[in-house]
């Protein structure tokens, strides 16, 4: 059953990305163009997501365990270090260059757009580089 939940959560997430138009890099770049022609939509996507997720997280966390698996499994890392800042800054630079972050990039594979598929491929190489050189662990 938890496999079905994974698939369905992905589908719902993907539909949310389409309705909010976050699959469209032009829309995302519009948000980041704060000093030019600004499109505040992305902020409303985050607010919409947080209105639903934030209160429910705090209710669900009080449960002894999730419904289909034995225990909750998520990062409780509270460390604020150079890796967090440098990694997030690199991500921000790539996000500002292409207008794509991981979710919308993967969802847009459905549109068979050669540019977004190229982006996803490069992103996967980035994941492998971090894994290979163990960059997420070393400080």
């Amino acid at each position: 059953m938890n496999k079905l939940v994974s698939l369905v959560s992905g589908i719902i997430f993907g539909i949310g990305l389409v309705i909010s138009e976050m699959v469209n890099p032009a829309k995302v770049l519009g948000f980041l163009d704060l000093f030019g022609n600004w499109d505040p939509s992305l902020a409303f996507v985050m607010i919409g997501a947080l209105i639903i997720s934030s209160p429910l997280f705090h209710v669900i966390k009080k449960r002894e365990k999730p419904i289909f698996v034995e225990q909750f499994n998520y990062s409780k890392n509270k460390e604020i270090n150079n890796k967090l800042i440098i990694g997030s800054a690199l991500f921000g630079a790539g996000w500002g260059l292409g207008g794509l972050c991981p979710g919308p990039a993967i969802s847009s594979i459905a549109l068979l757009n050669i540019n977004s598929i190229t982006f996803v491929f490069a992103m996967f190489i980035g994941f492998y580089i971090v894994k290979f050189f163990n960059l997420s662990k070393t400080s």
Partner: protein
Amino acid sequence: MNIVNFTPITATLGGMIIGLAVVIFFLFNGRLVGISGIASNALTEKDNKFDNLLFLLGLIIGPIIYSLFTSKEISITISNSIILLIFAGLLVGIGTRVGGGCTSGHGISGIGRFSLRSIIATITFMVVGILTVLIKSFV
């Protein structure tokens, strides 16, 4: 600053749907959605591999299901420079893994549970993203 292309209603609605997907995944499977983590772990780790792949498959078929049911065409505008997109993809792949999350993992799941680490990461990638777009507008 001029405000353009602003779509607050579809943005908030799409965001709420994304929030719902995150809540379902947490309640049933005990995990917090972070797309960069799910995608990178699906490629490089054995744990939860099948779950992660199913979630990614869902992300891709979500938009297809949406356009089948609404017969709306999804249009995206993306940079035509392949070199720029490869560079952006590498930065996003490396940055999200070094920084431990992306727009979903830090921006929605992390902020949703009031993680200071995620709030700092989100501010960092947004500020750098905004600066990147600003610099791009001059070159």
